[in-house]
């Protein structure tokens, strides 16, 4: 074919791209693009913030490539130690974690603060998938009960930090694995029934601020300047955006500081105010494209472990998008969930791209494993 040089280049290119799923990557980049455009407006045209997000993106893409090149079996091997380390770290947090804003969520590592609950977000699905793969074909109720224990331990530790939002999301990620692994409908329905029954008991154990959030969610106007303020202002931002939006950099709710957390959790309100319903539909379509591709990858995965991990990642990705958008538009109470690939924040961006890398690994290692 060509000169040795071009052959070398071609090999490097092949090495770089062969594990990359172009559709998944393309959709993700498009969403990140939307995010950067919105961030520029939400951060009042702050170039440093934009630069920092772009640098995080670069690092995230490198990690994505790395994970795309790690075979699912390798991931399965590190699942158990990863989970155990995460649990130990959560116990450490409870013992000598740093208290910030009344919550004990962080471990001080000297250079930086580290939140073990973030690690658990990946460790738990890996652990559960490993467990079900191990007993593939012979999974019984007792396995589900054991899996439930694997879920309950970290969820409990995170809940008492207290971080109700994260503990629910981690519980969800575990539940998705159980669901995909074939948890009987009777048990699912039974669990829902039990949840409904113990609701009042849980209520009595909630912290005041948690109850406040729930009450305010049910009626934001009961505290328009306090807890309901975020919800009301976000709805006003979205609603006043109309069909076409107020135009980039022209959102009044955004630029006059009526929106809280406007470059992080509430960035969608900025987007919806400035780009309107049309922008929202485009963004929903991009997410749907990404999630659709992830569903196809999941469906084609060759091992149970890969299927369960990919399925859990896919469903979690959807969950983050849904919970954030529903929260911003007033359908759910205000919980601290960023909008995937759009909200400002390096950690979230990195863990999302790692997830995408795992999906790509599942996709690209499929034939290899099958053969």
């Amino acid at each position, binding site marked *: 074919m060509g000169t040795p040089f071009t052959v070398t280049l071609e090999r490097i290119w092949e090495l770089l791209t062969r594990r990359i799923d172009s559709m998944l990557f393309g959709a993700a980049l498009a969403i990140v693009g939307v995010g950067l455009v919105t961030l520029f407006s939400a951060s009042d045209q702050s170039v440093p913030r934009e630069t920092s997000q772009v640098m995080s993106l670069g690092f995230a893409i490198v990690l994505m490539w790395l994970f795309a090149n790690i075979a699912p079996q390798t991931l399965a091997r590190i699942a158990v130690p990863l989970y155990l380390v995460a649990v130990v770290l959560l116990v450490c947090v409870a013992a000598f974690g740093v208290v910030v804003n009344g919550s004990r969520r962080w471990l001080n590592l000297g250079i930086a603060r580290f939140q073990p609950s973030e690690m658990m977000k990946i460790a738990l699905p890996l652990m559960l998938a490993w467990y079900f793969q191990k007993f593939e074909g012979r999974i019984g109720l007792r396995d589900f009960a*054991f899996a439930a224990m694997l879920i309950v331990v970290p969820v409990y530790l995170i809940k008492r930090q207290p971080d109700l939002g994260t503990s629910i999301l981690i519980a969800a990620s575990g539940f998705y694995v159980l669901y995909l692994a074939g948890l009987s409908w009777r048990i699912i329905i039974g669990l829902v029934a039990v949840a409904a029954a113990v609701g009042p008991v849980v209520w009595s154990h909630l912290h005041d601020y948690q109850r406040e959030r729930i009450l305010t969610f049910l009626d934001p106007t009961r505290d328009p300047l306090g807890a309901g303020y975020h919800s009301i202002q976000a709805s006003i931002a979205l609603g006043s955006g109309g069909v076409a939006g107020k135009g980039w950099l022209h959102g009044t709710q955004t630029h006059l*500081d009526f929106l809280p957390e406007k470059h992080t959790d509430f960035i969608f309100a900025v987007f919806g105010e400035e780009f309107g319903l049309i922008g929202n539909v485009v963004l929903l379509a991009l997410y749907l494209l990404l999630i659709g591709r992830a569903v196809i990858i999941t469906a084609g995965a060759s091992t149970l472990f890969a299927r369960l991990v990919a399925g859990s990642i896919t469903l979690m990705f959807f969950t983050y998008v849904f919970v954030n958008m529903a929260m911003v538009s007033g359908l759910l109470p205000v919980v601290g969930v960023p909008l995937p690939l759009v909200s400002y924040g390096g950690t979230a961006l990195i863990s999302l791209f790692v997830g995408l890398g795992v999906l790509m690994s599942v996709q690209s290692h499929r034939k290899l494993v099958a053969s």
Partner: protein
Amino acid sequence: MFGRLFGGMRDSGERRGEFDAPELRNPEREQARFRRRLVLAAVAMVAGFGGLFARFYYLQVIEHAHFETLAETNRIAIVPIAPNRGVITDRNGVVLAQSYSGYTLEITPSKVPDLEATIDAVAKIVDIEPRDRKRFRKLLEESKDFESIPIRTRLTDEEVARFAVNRYRFPGVEIKARLFRQYPFGALASHAIGYIGRINDRDVQRIAAWDETADYKGTDTIGKAGVELSYERELHGTTGVEEVEVDANGRPVRTLKRTPPIAGDDLRLSIDIGLQQVAEEAFGDRRGALVAIDPRNGDVLAFVSKPGYDPNLFVDGIDPVNWQELNDSPDKPLLDRPLRGAYPPGSTIKPYLALAALKSGKRTPQQTIFDPGYFQIPGQSHKFRDDKPGGHGVVDMYKAIVESCDTYFYMLGADTDIDDTARFLSQFGFGRKTGIDIEGELTGVLPSREWKRQRFSGKGYPSDARKWYLGDSVSAGIGQGYNAFTPIQLAHAIAMIADNGVGYTPHLVKSVRDTRTGEVTLIASQPSGRIDVSPQQLAFVQNALVGVAKEGTSAAVFKDAKYVSAGKTGTAQLFSLKGEKYSEHHVDERLRDHAWYEAYAPADHPVIAVAVLVENGGFGAAAAAPIARKVFDHYLLGESAPGPAPVSAPNSDDRSD
């Protein structure tokens, strides 16, 4: 279970049978179920996005108009801009009340959790006196929660700068630019000019009654007394509006639209502040009232109520100490004496009664009586005493006025029906409001049978009390008994005599200047009536009044005056003498007689008429007439004439007035 996890699958076969194992055993079926569940999840995710879309559609299309309004309300604040209150000047353009802008430090109590702690902290940056705190507390009690209340007014530039640096530490505390009212002459003419104060609940109702609530949005003070009160609507102006874009903290970002305020009208008073000053100084420490009127048009040239008060104290809310002092003082500095002090007129009523007698024919100028020093109603033993023991001897009407002979007027009173007298005197405006252009005037009392019937109609009075007795008429003949006139009524009446029987409604405001167009509207003189007497009858009384100042009770005071004046002294008894001889020195100061003097000058073409009352001043000739002399000297000669020879405390010879 842990055994199974770490020790392999020894017993897995056994367990498998317990649950729906048969399907699980088949990887094909398992995978099929996985697919089914994945498809279900996919459907759920699409449905979730569908739900989100529905929500967006609801917010952004169906409820768009509602949220757009909310966003605009969020964003745009309508800020009222208070208009500059009109300037009040005297007749020569000397400023008596003006507004200037200054800075106040204000606290919005609803935004501050601990007021005392906040004030203590602020006090470390800006001086806050105990009286500021007291005033703040008083205003706090009177105000609504959402208002901001000044803790300090008139900040210096340095204080403004110092606080601005620390502003972030004090949410709910801010510096505001306000317009302050200032009265450069302090207490001088205070009852005429009045004052402004913070709007209270009653004022709010008043504003609502004018339908001007919107126009007072940016205003927090309103006229409370005097011209400031009565000409509130002219002085206030029209509030401007600024539409500003504000951020979530309420800080203005930029101005979108601005309608400037229109300043209030400027008022030019008929008062001559120089004359006013001379008049007030002439009172010294004594209490009393003086009204000087231009008899040709009703211009009020001087309007004195002593003691006065400093209207500047009220401007930013009076502090409780000053307020209590003003309220509790036995000197009643807040009493508007010219309008609200109703005093027995004493002998000042005599010229009017003489005119009434001439008109009715009860007396001719030449008719004489003999005065033994007292008058008795036939068949009664009570003696109505003349001030001059032994009497004035043979007295005609001229001498009766000039020497102020009581016996002459006792007899006249006994000979005249009180209702006829009341009818005639009411032409001068006694017993009703003069209609001066500031509020609060009393009607005083011009007694008649009907008046007495109504006055004592209460169940607590015996029916005898409602009857009119001859003795009542006799007392009324020398201005005692039930008669009570206000100084403004007397000034108006003497001005009518000065202007040959023609009267004008007294007025303090001479012209109103529209500050926008510069157009000046003169307040037209309103004729208040004409006395129904012949010119000869009037001329006779006028001549007698000249006689008073030339050879009568006030002659000593007007000796060497470079003009001819006319006047009448009066002494209003407060202390019932019961036939005893009155000795000034033996009566408590507060129970001493009030001294009156009514006068006008120059006698042939009067340009000024005054009524002077000195409370507990004793004899009119001694206490009140010298004040009139100083006023005339200043007004007619442009000087503060050397004081006239002091009138000695009246001895028996000229006690009469």
